[in-house]
């Protein structure tokens, strides 16, 4: 896989990376209270008595959050622990009303699982590496402090306080920034397929603590640092890049890496120390006496399993094997759940419109989607989510190509017009007279005129300058305003040129 190495003055260094990803669970209410979880509400508008830790308030687990975490565990092939328990992690901070976070240290909900990543964009079946996941546990998020609202005081917003998070802890199995990036993207894709986390790193619903150490290849693990709360894939990769180089510099200048918590500064792309192990909190974890152990029965776990959608790897394999798509195209179409959903909707409509099986139109649909539509959306600065074109409209266009009404190149024009006007493909073709000309008689007449007008070039062609064939095709198409059926034009030109 990755042979990423840092070149130091004393030789090559290998980077060892583990990620702890905090993923906000998609649920209407918080982990232990009925308060809402929507992003962007007015400060302290979504705070229950429990979230504010009023005297005598008690937590009651939200079953939906547990269900989402179990589904996530199943999606990474994790071991589902039918007996787990909540622990209190005790520390004082103004954004932590209870003075403790309810988490799971000793008995997490999900045990050992894994995710397969590939670094080869052209072929996701190649260069596959398995990244171990040690555990997923469920815990409460803290509130938010705002330091810029008052000259001497900080404000506290408890809207996030008590929101359910999954902490997904990887094994230290990654060896390069690229691997870490691939892991994060794959994990995010899986979470979004499952629907247990929206994966929105900008809004903070997914963030990573990045553990980095360096060693000479083959040596024991070095001392690691943990960079907290990094909130984009790019920043995670930058953190690793910077942190690994910093550690190599420290070690090569005779120093020691200090086990500590660090912060990433997106403005400078560097990390800085937040607190060292010596000032680390003693969290005094102990089982939360307000909560009973969490016990799941087989029926619950099986219902979670049955509710899982087809996951990205399985879908990609199916696209390759059943639909005959290339690994590259299948990879592109399955990388994000929205793309796969759009493609499958298009596939269904296209097959129906053309009266064929899905596998018969799959390549056409996949290639058109990944090249034509993606290209057009790119130019418009839009994504599939807010595509002005629906799968049904796209299927109509594909059907016109499929039955020979328009050529592929005319289809490009039609697509532009569809995006411009919002009109249907058929309407545009009729209105603009873009219907393809396949009548041999009509084309023969044009061909004859083109050859007659260019007698000198015909001589050269016949004299062996075969490259001129393209010129004749171009002239013929031009004369027909691009509407000649390219196949028929080719055939008739070949015939006419002998």
């Amino acid at each position, binding site marked *: 896989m990755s042979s990423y190495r840092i070149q130091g003055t004393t030789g090559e260094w290998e980077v060892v990376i583990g990620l702890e990803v905090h993923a906000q669970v998609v649920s209407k209410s918080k982990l232990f209270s009925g308060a809402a979880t929507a992003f962007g509400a007015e400060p302290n508008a979504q705070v229950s008595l429990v979230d504010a*830790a*009023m*005297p*005598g308030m008690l937590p009651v687990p939200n079953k939906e959050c547990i269900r989402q975490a179990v589904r996530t565990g199943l999606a990474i092939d994790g071991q589902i622990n039918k007996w787990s328990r909540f622990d209190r992690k005790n520390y*004082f901070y103004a954004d932590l009303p209870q003075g*403790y976070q309810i988490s799971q240290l000793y008995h997490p909900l999900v045990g050992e699982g894994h995710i397969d990543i590939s670094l080869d964009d052209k072929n996701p079946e190649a260069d596959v590496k398995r990244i171990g996941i040690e555990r997923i546990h469920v815990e409460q998020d803290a509130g938010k402090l705002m330091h810029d609202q008052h000259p001497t005081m*900080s404000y506290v917003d408890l809207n996030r306080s008590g929101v359910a998070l999954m902490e997904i802890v990887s094994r230290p199995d990654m060896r390069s920034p690229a691997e870490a990036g691939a892991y994060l993207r794959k994990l995010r894709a899986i979470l979004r397929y499952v629907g247990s986390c929206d994966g929105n790193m900008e809004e903070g619903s997914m963030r990573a603590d990045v553990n980095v150490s360096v060693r000479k290849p083959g040596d024991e693990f070095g001392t690691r640092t943990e960079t907290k709360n990094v909130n984009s894939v790019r920043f995670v990769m930058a953190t690793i890049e910077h942190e690994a180089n910093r550690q190599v510099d420290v070690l090569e200048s005779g120093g020691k890496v200090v086990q500590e918590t660090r912060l990433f500064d997106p403005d400078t792309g560097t990390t800085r120390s937040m607190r060292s192990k010596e000032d680390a909190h*003693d969290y005094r974890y102990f089982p939360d*006496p307000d909560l009973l152990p969490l016990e799941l029965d087989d029926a619950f776990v099986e219902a979670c399993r049955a509710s899982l959608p087809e996951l990205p790897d399985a879908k990609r394999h199916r696209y390759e094997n059943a639909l005959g798509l290339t690994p590259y195209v299948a990879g592109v179409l399955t990388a994000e759940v929205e793309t796969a959903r759009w493609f499958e909707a298009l596939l269904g409509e296209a097959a129906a419109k053309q009266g064929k099986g899905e596998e018969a139109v799959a390549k056409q649909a996949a290639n058109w989607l990944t090249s034509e539509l993606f290209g057009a959306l790119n130019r418009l600065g839009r994504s599939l989510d807010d595509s002005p074109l629906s799968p049904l409209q796209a299927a109509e266009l594909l059907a016109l190509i499929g039955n020979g009404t328009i050529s592929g190149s005319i289809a490009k024009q039609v697509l532009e017009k569809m995006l411009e006007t919002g009109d249907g493909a058929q309407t545009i073709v009729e209105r603009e007279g873009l219907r393809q000309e396949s009548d041999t008689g009509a084309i023969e007449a044009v061909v004859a005129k083109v050859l007659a007008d260019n007698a000198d070039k015909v001589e050269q062609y016949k004299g062996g300058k075969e490259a001129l064939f393209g010129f004749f095709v171009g002239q013929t198409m031009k004369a027909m305003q691009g509407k000649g059926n390219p196949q028929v034009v080719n055939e008739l030109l070949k015939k006419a040129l002998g």
Partner: protein
Amino acid sequence: MTDLTELGVAAIREGVAKGDFTAVEVAEAFNANVAAAQGSLNAFIVATPEAALEAARKVDADRAGGKALGKMAGVPIGMKDLFATRGVQTTAASHILEGFTPQYESTVSQKLWDAGAGMLGKLNLDQFAMGSSNETSYFGNVVSPWRRAGGDNAPLAPGGSSGGSSAAIAARLCPAATGTDTGGSIRQPAAFTGTTGIKPTYGRCSRWGVVAFASSLDQAGPMARSVRDCAIMLEAMAGFDPKDSTSLDLPVPEWEAGLSANLAGKKVGIPREYRMDGMDAEVAKSWDDGIAWLKDAGAEIVDISLPHTKYALPTYYIIAPAEASSNLARYDGVRYGLRDLPDGANLQDMYAATRAAGFGDEVKRRILIGTYVLSAGFYDAYYTQAQKVRTLISRDFEAAFGHCDVILAPTTPTAAFALGENSDDPLAMYLNDVFSVPASLAGLPAMSVPAGLNSQGLPLGLQLIGKPFDEQGVLNAGLAIESRAGFTAKPEKWW
């Protein structure tokens, strides 16, 4: 006309229902006693005479309108100031919560109001329910209405932590009151004041809205002057609450209807480990009386062994402070209650100043102990070990209940002590809990009933410990003692 304040829960409810007197008359009578005693007994932190009258008026109106009356209709009660009461200051007897007025009502108090009870006021207690004498209250200690015979007028402890409750009941300031029991906080004050109180099985009464001390032990229960009154009130307080994850999802039995002092066919266990060397002779004598009374009621007496009893107190004083150290972290000056913000203070300074000023010494002591036993390097030696011993103590009871239906023991090692007597010796104070703590650790129902007076004229209590969910067995054995002990003594009024 009878003195209404001499009546208990059942008598008041029946008198109101029959029209012998009105609920308002009852509330007025108790309101007057509360007001008259406040300067001397200090049983209430806040009196709420208007709340008592308002509830009484509603009961009288309901009766006049022919509506069905609740289990506690017309009965004014005292509410331990550990229960959150909407719109009424709730302090846990601490400075840190002084002035805190909840916008919510605890499940247990709401159930009592729904059953027709009214609130005379918020009762004093040991701060955060930590204490056995009421001396840890920020609002001054409660004084027991009892005094030693023979001219020694030393003010006595009403017990703790529910000492406001016990004193108020004994002094006829209320016919009944709520208590909470973490390691004996209902039973010990009941024993000290000649009153009756039951801690039900852990989970019977919702903890929602009760200021937490030690979550795995805290349990609310009724205190009154008779077993029947406790049964009535417990029925009103108990029941499954989806807002408390540790609440028992079981129907509430009809304990009052099930009362029977006939113990024929029942076996009463006498734990040999509770008969300690140097035991107070009068306490031992009252235990023997209890054995004789239960025999008389038809029970068979059997010796049982609870071998891990001697580890109960140290176990309790690890687990309860551990949980408390975490439960009390929320009192940080950020959102409610006291905030002490010295000039130029940062967040840490504010925490330190607020908590130093807001918590009393005993609370601080337990937070320190709890923090210590949970800290890295000590956790296994203390907390983990204590949890293991707690399991062994529960198993002791399980095994013992293979041989008996209910256990009889003294409630406390001595009668009430004088205020100040133990206050500079925390260990001597903790020893008060020696007989009550094991049942708490095992989550078992346990009650204290008055058994008589000692030679100094002070009440002694007997404790009955039952199987999980068998409050009925405990109440019935309590009733058998009550009906034979003939305890009618009351403190001579001096306040």
